[in-house]
C-alpha cells in the first residue's frame, strides 16, 4: 500500500533490522534496538492492514492523507488491540524520521503534524456507525486528539524499559480532566473516567452498568455496568444542535466520549461488546423508524439501555445465583479467587439458604480485592480462610469446588479474568476439582485468544514495587536498572480445559458452548431488527 509513509530509516545503524531470534528477543542490553525492531514489526503489520485503519490511526504519520481513502469500512475488530501499539511505534518512528517528515513538507513537531493532518482526516467521516459492524473508534476525526495524547505518554513511558513483546499492552495513565470540558464531554463521563482510572470502579459488571448510565446522560460510556449507566445519563442529557436529528447526532456525540474512555483505561472486552450493542441499537432505531421524533428516539434508547442493565446484568445475576445454588452442597469447601460480584452474591445466598459450607478466599497482590469479599462473607457468618495465591497448592487439597468470576468468555471457550485465575483453575484441574465459572452472557465475546499477552492491560508497575519493606526494598530504584522490567498485568486467559462448567443466566453450559450462546443472542438481535 502507500509506500512513502512506510519508509523505515534503514540508513541509521540503530534501525538495522535485527538478524536473529536471539538478537530480537533474548538480548538484555540495547533497548533502543529492541524498540526499533518492534516499530519495524508494526510497520509490516500496518501495511498488511486495511487502508481504512491506517487513515484513522496513522494520520500523524502520513505525508499524504489521501493515500488511504477511508472507504467507510470500519477497522477490523482485531485491529483494536493493535492500534495503540501501532500508535506508539509510529511515535517512535516519528522521532527518528523527523527529517524525512520535514522533507515531506510537514512541521517538525509530531504534534503539529498531527494537527495539520487531523483536518483532512476529519472530512471523510465514515458512515460506519450505521453499518452492521460498528467499531468503537470508528471516527477518525474525533479520536485524533486522543491519539496525540496517548502517543505523548507512550513516549515518556518507553524510557522505563518495557519489554518489546509487551509494548503493545496498555499503559496506565491519568485522564486529563482539564481538557475534558473543551472536548464537549459530559461531566458524568469525566467523573466516571476518573473512577475507573483509579480503580474505584472495579469489576466488569459494575464498569459496564455505570458506563451505560453515563452514556444515558450524555450518550457515552465506559466500564460495563458503569459504562452502561454512564451512557444512559449522557443520552438523557444530550441535546442535538438545531439542524440535526437526535439519532444522527447522538452517534457523533458518543464517539469522543468513547475515545475518552478508551484513553483512560483500556476498555474491558465486555464493555466493547456493550458499546457495539449500543451503537447497533442507535442505528437500528434510525433504520426501523426514520420518522421518529427526537424525544421518541431518546426515550427508546434510554429504555433499551435500562432493559439491558436489567435483563442482562441485574436479573442475570439473580438467575446465576439461582442456578449456582444447586451446585453448592452441605459440606462443601469452596475456593474462590479475588472478587467477583456474582460469586459474592452466590455465596451469600447459599449461606442465607442454610447451606453448610466453608469458603477459602485466595487473594493476590497488589490489588487484594479478595479482602472486600472476605469482609462480606465473614460478616454473613460464613466460615472463611484467607490465603495468598502462593499458598494455593497447600489449601487446594481440601477444596471440593472452585467458583470463579469471569471478565469475559471467549469464543474458544477460554476465560479472560483477573490475573492469577488461570493458575487457580489449573491447580484445581490437576486435582480433579470441578471449576465453576459464573458469567453473565453479556460477557461472552466473539474473539479468540490463546495466551494472555495478545490483549491485556498493565497497571502501574510501582504497585508491585512498593512493599512494607520500605527502603530496604531492593526494587525501589528499579527504573534505573537497565536490565530489569516490572510487569503488572491485570488479566490472564484460562484455557477451556480447566473449566468444568459455566453458570449463566440461561443455565449451566460447558465453556465450549460460548460461541453458540453468543450467536443465539446476536441472532435474536438480528431477528428483532427485522
Amino acid at each position: 500500500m502507500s509506500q512513502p509513509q512506510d519508509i523505515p530509516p534503514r540508513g541509521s545503524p540503530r534501525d538495522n533490522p535485527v538478524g536473529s531470534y536471539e538478537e530480537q528477543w533474548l538480548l538484555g542490553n540495547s533497548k533502543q534496538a529492541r524498540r526499533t525492531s518492534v516499530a519495524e514489526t508494526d510497520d509490516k503489520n500496518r501495511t498488511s492492514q486495511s487502508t481504512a485503519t491506517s487513515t484513522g490511526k496513522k494520520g500523524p504519520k502520513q505525508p499524504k492523507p489521501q493515500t488511504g481513502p477511508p472507504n467507510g469500512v470500519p477497522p477490523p475488530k482485531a485491529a483494536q488491540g493493535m492500534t495503540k501499539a501501532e500508535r506508539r511505534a509510529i511515535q517512535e518512528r516519528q522521532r527518528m524520521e523527523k527529517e524525512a517528515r520535514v522533507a515531506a513538507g510537514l512541521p517538525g513537531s509530531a504534534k503539529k503534524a498531527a494537527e495539520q493532518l487531523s483536518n483532512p482526516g476529519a472530512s471523510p467521516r465514515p458512515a460506519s456507525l450505521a453499518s452492521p459492524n460498528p467499531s468503537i473508534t470508528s471516527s477518525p476525526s474525533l479520536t485524533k486528539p486522543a491519539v496525540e495524547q496517548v502517543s505523548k505518554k507512550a513516549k515518556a513511558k518507553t524510557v522505563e524499559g518495557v519489554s518489546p513483546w509487551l509494548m503493545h499492552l496498555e499503559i496506565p495513565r491519568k485522564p486529563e480532566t482539564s481538557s475534558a470540558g473543551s472536548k464537549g464531554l459530559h461531566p458524568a463521563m469525566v467523573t466516571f473516567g476518573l473512577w475507573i482510572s483509579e480503580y474505584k470502579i472495579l469489576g466488569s459488571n459494575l464498569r459496564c452498568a455505570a458506563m451505560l448510565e453515563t452514556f444515558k446522560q450524555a450518550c457515552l460510556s465506559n466500564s460495563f455496568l458503569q459504562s452502561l449507566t454512564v451512557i444512559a445519563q449522557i443520552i438523557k442529557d444530550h441535546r442535538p444542535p438545531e439542524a440535526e436529528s437526535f439519532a444522527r447526532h447522538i452517534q457523533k456525540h458518543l464517539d469522543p466520549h468513547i475515545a475518552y474512555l478508551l484513553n483512560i483505561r483500556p476498555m474491558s472486552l465486555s464493555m466493547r461488546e456493550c458499546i457495539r450493542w449500543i451503537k447497533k441499537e442507535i442505528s437500528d432505531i434510525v433504520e426501523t423508524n426514520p420518522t421518529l421524533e427526537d424525544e421518541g428516539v431518546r426515550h427508546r434508547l434510554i429504555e433499551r439501555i435500562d432493559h439491558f442493565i436489567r435483563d442482562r446484568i441485574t436479573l442475570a445475576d439473580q438467575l446465576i445465583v439461582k442456578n449456582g445454588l444447586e451446585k453448592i452442597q452441605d459440606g462443601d469447601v469452596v475456593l474462590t479467587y479475588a472478587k467477583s460480584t456474582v460469586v459474592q452474591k452466590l455465596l451469600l445466598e447459599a449461606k442465607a439458604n442454610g447451606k453448610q459450607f466453608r469458603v477459602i478466599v485466595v487473594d493476590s497482590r497488589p490489588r487484594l480485592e479478595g479482602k472486600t469479599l472476605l469482609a462480606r462473607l465473614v460478616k454473613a457468618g460464613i466460615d472463611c480462610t484467607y490465603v495468598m495465591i502462593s499458598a494455593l497448592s497447600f489449601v487446594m487439597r481440601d477444596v471440593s469446588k472452585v467458583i470463579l468470576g469471569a471478565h469475559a468468555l471467549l469464543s474458544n471457550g477460554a476465560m479472560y479474568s483477573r490475573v492469577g485465575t488461570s493458575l487457580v483453575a489449573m491447580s484445581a484441574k490437576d486435582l480433579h476439582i470441578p471449576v465453576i465459572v459464573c458469567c453473565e452472557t453479556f460477557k461472552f465475546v466473539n474473539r479468540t485468544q490463546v495466551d494472555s499477552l495478545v490483549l491485556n492491560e498493565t497497571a502501574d508497575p510501582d504497585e508491585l514495587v512498593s512493599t512494607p519493606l520500605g527502603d530496604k526494598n531492593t526494587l525501589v530504584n528499579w527504573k534505573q536498572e537497565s536490565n530489569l522490567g516490572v510487569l503488572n498485568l491485570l488479566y490472564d486467559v484460562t484455557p477451556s480445559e480447566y473449566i468444568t462448567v459455566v453458570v449463566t443466566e440461561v443455565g449451566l453450559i460447558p465453556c465450549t458452548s460460548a460461541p453458540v450462546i453468543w450467536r443465539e443472542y446476536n441472532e435474536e438481535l438480528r431477528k428483532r431488527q427485522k
Partner: protein
Amino acid sequence: MANSNGFDVVQTYRQILGDPDMSTPVATFKALAEFMKHSSASTMSEFMQTLDQASQQIKAAAYAETGSWSKYMRLTHEEPIQYQHKAQVAALAGMDLFLRFVARNSHDILDFETCKQNLIDRSELILQKAAVARDRAAATGAQFIRDNGLVLVHAYSRVLMRLLMIAGKTGKRFRVLVTEGRPTTEGERAVRELTEAGIEAQGVLDSAVAYIMNKVDMVLVGAEGVVENGGVINQIGSYQVALVAKAHGKPLYAVAESYKFVRLFPLSQYDLPTKTPRLLNFADKNLMHPLLSAQTSQRQREESTSSVDLDVDVSLADFVLSNPSVDYTPPEYITLLLTDLGNLTPSGVSDELIKLYL
C-alpha cells in the same frame, strides 16, 4: 392419584412400560399424550397445570419403579425402599423434552379448544419422531463397526442391540464381548440375543474389562441420559469401562436417541439428581431396610432370612440396594455420541440443547 376425568396417568405409564422394547422417555411421551387427550380442563392454565401435575406423578412413579431389579425388591415389606433406579434420569429427560416441545407454541393461540387440539397434534408429532429415533441412531452407529472387529459392549441396551443387529444384517463379520453388567446381569440376555441372531458373542466379567481391553477395537455404551456437557449417565460400570478404554487408547462411542438429552450438568458422581442418601453411606445404616440395618443382629437376620422366601442372598441385596445403579461418564472419555441427529462430539450436545431451550 390425582387425575383428570378419571384418567390415571401413572397406570398408563406403567402399562406402556410393560412393553420390553419401550424406552422410558417414549413411555413418558405416550402417557402424557394420553393424559392430554383425556384432560377435562376448561382453561389453558388449568390444562397446563394438570399436565405439569401429571408429569410430576410420572416422575414420582419412575423413582419408585423397580424395573428389572424387582427380584431384589421382594425383600421389602410394606413401605417401598427408595433406591436409585437407572430409569429415573431417562424419565426426567422425556418429561422435560415433552413439556418443552408441547409448550413451545402454546401461548400463541387464544382459543382454548384450538390450542388444546394443537398441543395434542404436537404430541402426536413428537411420538412419530421418537418412533424412528432409535432406528436412526442405530443405523448411524452401525457404520462404525468394522469388518473383523472386536466390539466391547457394556451390559444391555436396546439401542445398542439394534445397532449390532443392523451391523450383522449388513454382512459385517465381527465379534462382540458383552460385560456381565452387575447387578442386573443383563449382559447375559444380550449374549443370548446376539447369539440367536448369529453374531458371535461372549460374556465378560465386569472385573475382567481391563484384562480384555487390549484386544478390543472399540467400545460401545448405551445411555440413560446424555447430559449438557456431552457426558453420559448410564448403567453402573460404564465409567469404569470408559476409563480403561481411555487408558488403552480405544475409542468409546455412546449410542443414544436424542430424546435422552437432558438439561443436567453433574460435576461428579455425587452430583446426580437421583442420588439417594442411602448410597454407600456408612452413617445411615438405619435408613436401610430393616433386614439389612446395622442394628439387626446376625441372629435376627438369620431368622428373617429363613422366614421369608428368598431366592436372593441377603448380602447381595445389601450390595444392590446400597450401591448406585447409574454412573456418570465425563465427556473427555467419550470419543463420539452416535445419535439420530448424527454423530456428535460431546460438546455438540450442549449446542443442540441450547438451540432447543434458549
